[in-house]
């Protein structure tokens, strides 16, 4: 999988008009400068040599050197990773933690579910970067509950717990923005999965045996519906990370998103490749984890069918 992605990226980059040299040296660079840059980054070698070097590097986890930062791509990515995780992890947990119960509630009856469904469909239609901006206008500019942007307050030299509190305060709005889409998606898919299970005879049996409605839903319907929920939730991670990039740009959050934005503007190809590969890795990992969870939940699924990432 990764090999295919890497190869596709490599080919794409070399099909570009202009290419890296124009980006680094400008459009009117003299031949000496161009040759110098070509030599420094190995661009004067034949294409297949470049490709093999690229693959060999990839296998060693070496993504090359960022043209703009002059540091190894992996290093640049590692520096930005924690900031992105601070946004992404709580957001995913919130989406799953609130979305599943809401979805079950929405599956209970058509009339009661209508409000939740409409809200979810509406939330689904809201672009994350626009929502982030609105939230900021309301809560940072109008009432000033939360900071406008950034991850820490530049004026405070706090450390330890205080610093974490500062970061948390900065993270509230971005996390809220980021959560909404995934939450709406989770509600919709939980509802449709649970609705199917509720129609099964075993659900009626569970109720008839004297289980409460809630117990029947959570102990009987949810485990049966969860493989679908887990898989589709993981499938959505790529979309979710795209949202994270936009939200980071809105709130000037120093993570992957901002890095991607800057790398694109600088035509820093190794870094762009690194980011796309990293995001793809995360997406694949999420799907792999989903498959493992899937097997843990549903013993009927055999490993050779499940591990298909």
């Amino acid at each position, binding site marked *: 999988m990764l090999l*295919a992605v890497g190869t596709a990226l490599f080919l794409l980059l070399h099909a570009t008009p202009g290419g890296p040299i124009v980006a680094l040296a400008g459009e009117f660079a003299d031949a000496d400068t161009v040759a110098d840059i070509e030599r420094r980054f190995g661009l004067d070698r034949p294409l297949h040599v470049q490709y093999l070097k690229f693959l060999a590097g990839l296998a060693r986890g070496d993504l090359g050197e960022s043209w703009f930062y002059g540091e190894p791509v992996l290093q640049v990515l590692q520096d930005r990773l924690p900031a992105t995780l601070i946004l992404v992890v709580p957001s995913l947990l919130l989406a799953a933690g609130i979305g599943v119960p809401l979805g079950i509630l929405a599956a209970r009856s058509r009339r009661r579910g209508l409000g939740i469904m409409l809200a979810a*469909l*509406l939330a689904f*239609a809201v*672009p994350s970067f626009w929502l982030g901006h609105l939230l900021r206008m309301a809560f940072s500019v109008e009432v000033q509950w939360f900071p406008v942007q950034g991850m820490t307050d530049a004026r405070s030299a706090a450390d330890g717990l205080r610093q974490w509190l500062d970061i948390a305060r900065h993270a509230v709005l971005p996390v809220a923005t980021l959560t909404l889409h995934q939450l709406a998606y989770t509600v919709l898919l939980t509802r449709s999965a649970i609705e199917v299970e509720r129609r099964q005879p075993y659900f009626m049996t569970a109720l008839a045996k004297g289980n409460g409605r809630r117990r029947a839903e959570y102990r009987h319907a949810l485990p049966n519906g969860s493989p*679908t929920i887990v898989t589709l939730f993981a499938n959505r991670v790529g*979309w979710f990370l*795209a949202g994270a990039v936009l939200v980071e740009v809105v709130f000037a959050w120093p993570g992957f998103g901002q890095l991607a934005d800057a790398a694109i503007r600088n035509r820093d190809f190794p870094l762009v490749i690194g980011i796309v590969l990293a995001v*793809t890795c995360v997406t694949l990992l999420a799907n792999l984890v989903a498959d493992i969870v899937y097997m843990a939940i549903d013993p009927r699924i055999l490993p050779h069918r499940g591990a298909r990432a």
Partner: protein
Amino acid sequence: MTTVAPVRTGRDAPPRDRLAEPGAAPRPGRRGALVPALLLLLPVAAAAIAPGLVAPFDPFANSGPALTAPGWAHPFGTDDLGRDLLSGVVYGARTSLTVAALATLLACAIGTGIGMVAGYFGGLIDDALMRFTEFVQVVPRFFVALLVLTLFGPSAVTMALVLGLMSWPGLARLTRAETLSLRGREFVRAAEALGGSPAWILRRHLLPHVQRPVLAVAAPVATGAILTEAGLSYLGLSDPNAMSWGKLIQTGQAFYTHGWWLPLMPGAAIVVTCFGLALLVEGLRPRF
């Protein structure tokens, strides 16, 4: 040249692909959703089809004082250069909906084709195609689009192409599941017995059946394309010669302390369109 497949009755027909898309499960929708959906979508459609008739001003020309709040002359206000924002949003509709429509058509064509071939032929072809589908499904499409637009320069056509080429897996899975369930039915067997070529059977007998469910899943693809297009434009990757909702939000955001309406209105247009599409699917579902 005809190969007769074992008869599959309803009972042992393969189950639907439950991972196709959450909306793909056959369930009753709500007819009542149709009216609000059309109320939301008709103005947007009118704007996209005939922006010259709907828009009061030229979206790129100065038409009043800068940063006028929404009022009678300018229902959505004007921007920092005195351009009418309503006209901008109206012309933006054309860009967004064209990209979405092209991407969706392309995705439908590829998804239906791959799904039908995989479902009909089965075996190795099915395995290979579905593996490929899974591959495309997990590749983060926003990032691929971002990469391609950065490299090849932003244009509406490129954007539509990339989004179309990346958004078909859900459709392919659905079509495959539908085809699998039809594959052993009598009319397909009869067509095979008549000596029909696979291409003819796929086109004349299977395509009409799989078209309808595909339509229900096409709307989310369009919604995704609209949102992705807006997001990419927001990052500055929009066609420089066309108005676009994402671009309006991006440029408007810089002036939000002087004109709250600048980022608000184009975003509202996106919400209206996507919500309208979602309601449309709900409303049309009983008919599919």
